[in-house]
């Protein structure tokens, strides 16, 4: 196989993977956009959703897939509403480090709670998606990646539409801009905070199912959360289109680094390269490609 063909295949795979990173990062951006909170537990949200769904699918419960997905979704919605109410609301207006640390504390709780309730052994999420490769001209796709990319695109478009066109979406952007002004204009700010966390929960649930079906589910699934940071910094912390572009960039850079740089350095550069890229971006354009320029300089 020629290097060029290999590169195109890697590229295709990178795009598909990148869109799945976008899906996880989307939850992070939704929360930041509406509430200015930084959620370091997004990976753990994905993990807990994956654990719940895979446990329901396992022989011990034996739920059909649609019911498991539905219960998983309901669980994430209720869980995130409770979370917003109990943990995040008292922290409104606190310095950013408090919120970061609170979500880190939350991550600890979820990592203990998931295995405590459902057992620590890894499980599979079997989706009705075939396991053989789909060959598409010079490209070579995994069906699950195509589905994942498709779901990501649908949701990214959906949320984009929601923020631009619907009344609630516009209100949410207003809340993000200024809590006080939107409150004065009669927007129930706290309700929108809760909504943002619920949406993040829904996205985490999708991420948990898709990533869970790729890799199997146990507490290690939470590590997918570490992919979020390069994606959101590249794209911009508060931009949905940025999440898509950032995700694709990270996916493609990872794939190409793995295929073309690894052989020369004798180590895995796949996770290293996006972080270097991210540092560069922070130096040149900290607000990312599509983020709002709200950087104070001193």
């Amino acid at each position: 196989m020629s290097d060029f063909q290999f590169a195109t295949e890697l590229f295709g795979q990178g795009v598909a993977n990148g869109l799945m990173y976008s899906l996880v990062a989307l939850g992070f951006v939704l929360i930041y956009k509406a509430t200015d909170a930084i959620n370091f537990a997004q990976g753990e949200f994905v993990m807990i959703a994956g654990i719940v769904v895979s446990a329901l699918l396992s022989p011990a419960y034996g739920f059909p897939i649609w019911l498991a997905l539905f219960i998983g979704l309901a669980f994430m919605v209720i869980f995130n509403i409770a979370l917003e109410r109990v943990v995040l609301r008292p922290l409104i207006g606190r310095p950013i480090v408090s919120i970061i640390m609170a979500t880190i504390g939350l991550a600890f709780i979820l990592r203990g709670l998931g295995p405590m309730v459902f057992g620590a052994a890894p499980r599979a999420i079997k989706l009705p998606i075939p396991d053989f490769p789909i060959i598409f001209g010079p490209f070579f796709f995994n069906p699950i990646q195509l589905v994942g990319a498709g779901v990501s695109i649908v949701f990214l478009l959906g949320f984009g539409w929601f923020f631009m066109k619907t009344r609630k979406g516009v209100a949410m952007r207003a809340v993000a801009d200024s809590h006080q002004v939107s409150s004065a204009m009669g927007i129930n700010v706290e309700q929108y905070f809760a909504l943002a966390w619920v949406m993040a929960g829904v996205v985490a649930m999708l991420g948990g199912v898709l990533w869970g079906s790729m890799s199997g589910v146990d507490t290690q699934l939470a590590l997918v959360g570490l992919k979020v940071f390069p994606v959101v910094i590249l794209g911009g912390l508060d931009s949905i289109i940025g999440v898509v572009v950032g995700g694709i960039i990270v996916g493609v850079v990872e794939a190409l680094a793995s295929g073309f740089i690894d052989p020369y350095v004798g180590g895995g550069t796949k996770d290293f390269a996006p972080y270097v890229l991210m540092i560069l971006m922070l130096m040149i354009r900290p607000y990312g490609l599509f983020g709002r320029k709200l950087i104070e300089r001193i």
Partner: protein
Amino acid sequence: MRLLTTLGAAAIVASSIAGTASAKDIIIGMMCDRTGPTSVTGTALCPGYHDYINLVNSKGGVMGNKLVAHEIDHEYKVPPAVEAYQTYKAEGAVLVSPYGTPMVYALVQKMREDKIPGTSAGFGSAAAGNGERYPYMFPIAASYWSQAAAAVQFAKDKLGGSLKGKKIAYIYYDNPAGREGLPVLEKLAPKEGFEYREFAVPPPGIEMGPQVLDITRRYRADFVIAQLFGRAPSVALKEFKRAGFPLEKIVGFVWAGSEGDIQAAGGWEAAEGYNTIQFAGVGSDYPVLQEIRDMYKANGSEDPSAMKYTAYYNRGVFQAAVHVAAIENAVKAKGGSGDITGENVRDGFYEIKDFTLGGLLPPLEITRQDHEGGGWVRIFKVGKTGYVAETDWFRAFRPEVVELLAEEEKAK
């Protein structure tokens, strides 16, 4: 003041714990990780360990001396492991089993100073098997070097008896343990006439499409040796399957082939054909496991859920069995007295002979030079419903591995 009370309280509780052990109890310090990055292993391995110890105790202990396995979970972090070790030392433990490579390194000096032996099955570098350099550390299981040698031998057998002109892909988790197999491949490649290439999977390894694409479509490997940890093994299985690569031509090291990995990859049928190297027998058909099940039945309780995960559970039993065997030898040497020291137990390791628990354990030969026990492994294949033994206990390229050990020793 508060600090004093905290410490005081800790002291009181600690002494009360130590006080619960009567004079004849033999204490084993057993570290575990049930919450950290290797929790999947710990949650099945540690119950296996306790069950075997309980089984021995239910039969009257070691010549009438009761065994106490004190478990401390260190979350795969070094400072809690040091604290745990000191707890064991204060309790008078005669044997300690550190869990995890960094912890083994952090404790190996102290254990030598305190003359408390320990085992590190599946952890640490291959060099740790050198009994002269680490007189109190016993890996007791095949090192990554022995595993790599066995994997090459297995590939040779599977590819028709010769590796001339064949391509082997070594896909590894990009950490020190992951890279351990490389020196062996480097040494064996010219000898056996194969070429190899390394493919790194950086942590966390939840996605490895590009590497698998490279192996299957660009490098076109004839055989794959996988040294992966965590979620990476199941991801690899799925990716190779989707890429249309025959799973029969993949062999995974000891941390890449548990039931959990296979289940996460979609179950036995989905992973059928994949080969896994094991240093303790897998499956449930061993007399000792039946005894444990009978013990549970006699107590009126169900089999523990961890028992389903035989790859790790059996390793717990394996470790406990070797520990008990060493302790038994020490007690015998003292004429049945439970009043033994770490040194006695260390000597007990050298006396372990013809002890295989019906095939669960390899034919270990622990000598003063070789604490690895010979580097025995057995390869099991993933069948339609469970593991199928693919080979008997064997070891491969032993002279080359020993040579590598000598080279490493010289370099130090």
